[in-house]
């Protein structure tokens, strides 16, 4: 039954396979594609886990309203999401106009295409801030695509399979997003800390003009996130005498651990960017 030597051999073989897989996945981008197809194997589990939530929603709707009303309700809800997105953008644009910036610049901003998507799973590992959504490359999601909810930037798509995608949240310890202060246009980068309630601005000098309550919006630098969406609000600014940099903490405006309906943004320039990366 237990054959000592062959088990040890097997153990060493599998161990080596695992280690080379980790290294390959860490080093080579080609693994992305393989993973996209392998992920199909776990998609049923992700769907099954979501069944209680979905069936509860279903029952709830059946008990409350008739079919037509449900359809109408859903349509209205997605319209609200779209409208709210416009309002978010409007706030930033108004401030822009106040500053009398060059009109040529703002006329470049085209309206982006939006896909409404639903959350179907979250990562149970507290060190990885990722969620799974029910749009894959079959419905137009692509790697690098920015994701918003009704109140702000949530993150970006990091891998896609046919029917689902994985979204890295802005609070993940591996994530950073270029932002600017809405009040005065100060540019900086907001880093995730691995905690849902905080982002950190590490690169602000001690004398930088930043206050508690400042709204940070995406700056559009880095060509990944579109410009002007709210990202976070500054909640703490601490100065250390003798240190070059201030410690600034901000709270994400998106409801990272609550939103179930998300928006995938599609800007023309980004799609070409994604295609270039794909080639």
């Amino acid at each position, binding site marked *: *039954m*237990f054959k000592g030597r062959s*088990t040890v051999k*097997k*153990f060493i073989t*599998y*161990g080596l*396979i*695992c*280690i*080379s*897989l*980790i290294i*390959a*996945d*860490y080093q080579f981008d080609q*693994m992305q594609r393989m*993973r996209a197809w*392998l*992920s199909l*194997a*776990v998609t049923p*589990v*992700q769907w*099954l*886990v979501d069944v209680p*939530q979905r069936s509860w929603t279903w029952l709830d709707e059946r008990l409350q309203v008739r079919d037509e009303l449900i359809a109408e309700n859903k349509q209205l809800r997605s319209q609200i999401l779209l409208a709210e997105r416009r309002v978010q953008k409007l706030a930033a644009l108004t401030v822009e106009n106040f500053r009398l910036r060059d009109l040529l610049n703002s006329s470049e901003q085209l309206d982006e295409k939006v896909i409404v998507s639903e959350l179907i*799973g*979250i*990562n*149970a*590992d*507290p*060190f*990885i801030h*990722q969620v799974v959504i029910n749009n894959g490359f079959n419905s137009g999601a692509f790697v690098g695509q920015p994701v918003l909810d009704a109140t702000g930037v949530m993150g970006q798509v*990091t*891998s896609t399979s046919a029917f689902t995608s*994985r979204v890295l949240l802005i609070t993940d*310890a*591996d994530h950073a997003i270029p932002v600017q202060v809405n009040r005065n246009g100060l540019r900086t980068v907001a880093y995730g800390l*691995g905690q*849902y309630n905080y982002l950190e601005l590490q690169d602000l000098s001690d004398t930088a003009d930043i206050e508690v309550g400042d709204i940070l919006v995406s700056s559009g630098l880095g060509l990944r996130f579109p410009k002007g969406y709210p990202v976070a609000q500054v909640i703490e600014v601490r100065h250390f005498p003798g240190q070059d940099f201030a410690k600034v903490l901000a709270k994400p405006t998106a409801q990272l*651990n609550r939103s179930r309906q998300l928006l995938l943004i599609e800007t023309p320039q980004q799609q070409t960017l994604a295609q270039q990366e794909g080639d």
Partner: protein
Amino acid sequence: MVIQRSHNRWVAIFTLLIAFMLSALPIPEWVQWGWPEWVLLVFIYWVIALPHRFGLGWAFMLGLLLDLLQGNYLGVNALAMVVVTFFAMLMYRRLRMYRSWQQAFVVFFLVAIYQCISYWSQGIGSNASSGLWFLLPAPISGLLWLWLFVVLRGVRRAFKVA
């Protein structure tokens, strides 16, 4: 005389599927820190009970599926799973003799080893750190074992999994 050919392996697979669902369950953040390693626990049980059916090959596949489910680097959970299964296979005879609290103690160590391997090999590309809190699922898994062992033994006997 009817020779029972079926080993009822699907029952074990079904328990593993439930473990997968439990590990993918959307849970609040503060629970995540102590959420037990369901797949590992259930699999350890089947390794101890039926080491001739569930070995390193299974451990490798289950680990890969966990990696896909969690979006880790491929191989992180697989490596941890293979190592822990190897230890479990080395001492399954002794484990069967142990009292349940002794088993729970061993399981605590096995899960701790698992957490260390997956946490460290994941850490190569990340800058998250939080002291030793990542080990919290180990004692909780150990406690859970006391209950899980009874349940799975009941399942194994009821369905005559061999």
